[in-house]
């Protein structure tokens, strides 16, 4: 399907950027005229994925996190969040609720929340090469033809 709009964002893996990443993606998603709840869902999912890059992908160093967001003709937003970190050896295990390698400071519910707040979640990873999370959410149509510029 064709997309109407695209943005690419990258920033360094410092935790202070978690709120910046949420705000930036949310300002872009606003073009689809989402409800407040839809916007909060997107913010929450982005926060989980970005936190994972900071905590798990780059445990001992500061490196770059990449976000691409696209708005599609059917009012869907696709958000791709990518790192070049340690990677995930067993993705199914990682996606299971409560599984965490993060100790007491993490709940192991990040992927579960991304899944339940977005319509779809895809995770690709290669050990030592990095992880890519692809999320999509269709925004309810409240008026017709709002994206047109």
């Amino acid at each position: 399907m064709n997309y109407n709009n695209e943005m690419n964002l990258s920033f360094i893996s410092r935790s202070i950027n978690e709120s910046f990443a949420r705000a930036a993606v949310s300002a872009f998603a606003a073009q689809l005229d989402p409800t407040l709840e839809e916007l909060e869902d997107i913010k929450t999912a982005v926060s989980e994925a970005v936190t994972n890059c900071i905590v798990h992908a780059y445990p001992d160093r500061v490196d770059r996190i990449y976000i691409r967001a696209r708005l599609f003709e059917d009012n869907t937003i696709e958000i791709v969040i990518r790192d070049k970190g340690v990677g995930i050896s067993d993705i199914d295990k990682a996606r299971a609720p409560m599984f965490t390698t993060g100790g007491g400071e993490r709940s192991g519910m990040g992927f579960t929340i991304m899944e339940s707040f977005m319509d779809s979640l895809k995770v690709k990873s290669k050990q030592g090469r990095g992880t890519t999370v692809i999320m999509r959410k269709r925004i309810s149509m409240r008026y017709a033809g709002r994206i047109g510029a």
Partner: protein
Amino acid sequence: MKIISTKREGELKIAFEGELDHHAARSALSRISQLIDIELPRKLVLDLSSLSFMDSSGIAIIVHSYRRMNELEGSLVISNVPGQAYKVLSAAGINRIIQVDKALV
């Protein structure tokens, strides 16, 4: 994020203000642990009414508080939970283990 605590007759109330994400969570966790250790409350109330955002980092804090209160044989209540945070707690099934009171809108 800001943390405000009040103590009254064995009940310790800790109120959060702002955004509770992983960035805010580390200092929040050590602050809460400290407050519990000092006050040794019979009942702990985490008041989320002024949270504008919370992600799974908040769950880790709540689970930690729950374990600590169990050790002290006390109780834990999560109160005034705004819509977004409530959805996070529900997705994680926390409301099936711990008493979570939604905020009245």
